[in-house]
């Protein structure tokens, strides 16, 4: 009979399998080993966010555009910070990575709690949820980049390889940094719900700690050398500067002059150091996560 045959082969297979701890497989590497599940979870988040809304995906354009106009009107028009050429591009280039970071950090911090049904019942690697939050936020960056690139092309921007490398570096910095912080604080948010609120407050400050609504030269002028180094140690500020190298510089009348006058000279060296800093944050985040992850189900 077919059943007995299936049973016989099944037993053979079973004897070959080792006895393992059922909870042994966790960690970021496991997340990427199960990338099919990751893909479905990311798609689920994206689909669910817009399901039942009339404008649907259009919201991921409306939201950044509204922010852009708010800052543009307040800072650019009312406060008259017009001495930056193409101020709108200068700001929007920065706003994109800042939004990516803030969304990753905020949604990632809340991700474990939001998926508590799954987390407390099924043995999936829990790092999956902060990573999925980062990828969902990354997905929403797409439309914004399209808007930015279109605006730049209208202003006479020609994409250059160095600029594209800067864009890539900026995105990589935020991806790693955001995931690391999300890992660390998602587990903290399980223990204390206040963490999610605190992160929300914290991310409000990010917009002002990066050269986005003001030029980098202003920081350079007002701060002493030591303080500028401290300012530049912030990987998000680095990502914003790299974004400006990628987009804004090319739209100005004299790109070479703008790059040398308006941006720090060793941009790519600093950017690479920022990747290193972000990686350290990721390793620490994973360490904290693994350390406290064990007690997540009982705290939910």
């Amino acid at each position, binding site marked *: 009979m077919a059943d007995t045959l299936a049973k016989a082969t099944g037993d053979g297979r079973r004897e070959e399998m080792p006895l393992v701890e059922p909870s042994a497989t966790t960690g970021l590497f496991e997340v990427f080993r199960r990338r*099919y599940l990751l893909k479905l979870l990311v798609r689920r988040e994206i689909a669910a966010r817009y399901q039942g809304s009339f404008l649907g995906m259009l919201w991921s354009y409306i939201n950044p555009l509204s922010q852009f106009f708010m800052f543009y009107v307040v800072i650019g028009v009312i406060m008259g910070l017009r001495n930056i050429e193409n101020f709108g591009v200068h700001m929007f280039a920065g706003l994109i990575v800042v939004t990516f970071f803030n969304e990753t950090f905020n949604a990632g911090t809340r991700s474990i709690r939001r998926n508590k049904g799954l987390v407390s019942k099924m043995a999936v690697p829990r790092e999956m949820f902060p990573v999925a939050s980062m990828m969902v936020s990354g997905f929403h960056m797409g439309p914004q980049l399209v808007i930015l690139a279109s605006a730049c092309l209208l202003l006479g921007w020609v994409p250059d390889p160095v600029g594209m490398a800067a864009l890539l570096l900026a995105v990589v910095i935020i991806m790693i940094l955001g995931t690391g912080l999300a890992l660390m604080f998602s587990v903290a948010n399980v223990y204390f719900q206040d963490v999610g609120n605190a992160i929300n407050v914290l991310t409000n400050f990010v917009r002002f700690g990066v050269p986005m609504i003001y030029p980098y030269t202003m920081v350079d002028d007002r701060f002493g050398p030591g303080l500028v180094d401290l300012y530049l140690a912030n990987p998000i500020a680095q990502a914003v500067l790299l974004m400006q190298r990628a987009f804004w510089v090319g739209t100005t009348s004299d790109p070479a002059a703008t790059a040398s006058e308006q941006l720090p000279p060793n941009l790519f060296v600093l950017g690479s150091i920022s990747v290193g800093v972000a990686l350290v944050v990721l390793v620490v985040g994973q360490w904290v996560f693994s350390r406290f992850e064990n007690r997540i189900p009982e705290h939910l």
Partner: protein
Amino acid sequence: MTESIIVDHASKRFTLRYHRTFKQMTVAMARRQEVSDTFWALDDVSFTVNQGESIGLMGLNGSGKSTLLKLVSGVMRPDRGKVLTRGRIAGLIAAKAGFHPQLTGRENIYINAAINGMTEAETERKFDEIVEFADIGRFLETPVGHYSSGMAARLGFAVSVSVDSDIFLADEVLAVGDKPFKAKCMERMQQIRDEGRTIFYVSHAAGSVRKMCDRVIVLEEGKVGFDGGVDEGIKYLHYDEPTGSQEEHVDDELGADV
């Protein structure tokens, strides 16, 4: 015989926090009251299950059954001791856990299957079988949030039983669903048992344990109180004493919501 599940002196401790907010905590500390307390939900539990055995895990509410099931499924890790399993684990611990209410039944089948460790090809191969078992008809393309609780449970159950697992965990499976569906589930569980898969079945229903299992483990306040034959186990719990009422009889057969 191959061992399927080894639980070796496993203990699990939980912390009870009496006060939640900062204000409550400070007040309690100022008054020198206990802020938190720990207790052992599982205390030095040991047993071995061989491949193909069908275990009924019984015990009163709060005896540690669900915690033990979570240790075996890998959701939790023991604080002391060890839990080892062989092969793929699937189960009906939370059939609806991965469901997203805004997504359709079809989309949720794919996600739930992936959570249970199935690949895309495997899901596609079994998709029709899952839909047929769930028997949700034209609601397949409707958001799961609009399903009745029984329908959602059916969909979850259908996915879980379609996984080619070596260990099948079931936590009061038959608590939801109507009578025909319960009968269908029992039949499918029987089939899983016949396929030589290990079954770990948590239940209060003496009747279904008697039908389904060949060994009973009774937990009492986190310790193994009894480990042995089915009838003796049920006797140990005094679940075999006649109560007379009709309702209790149904409960005995199918298992009530817990």
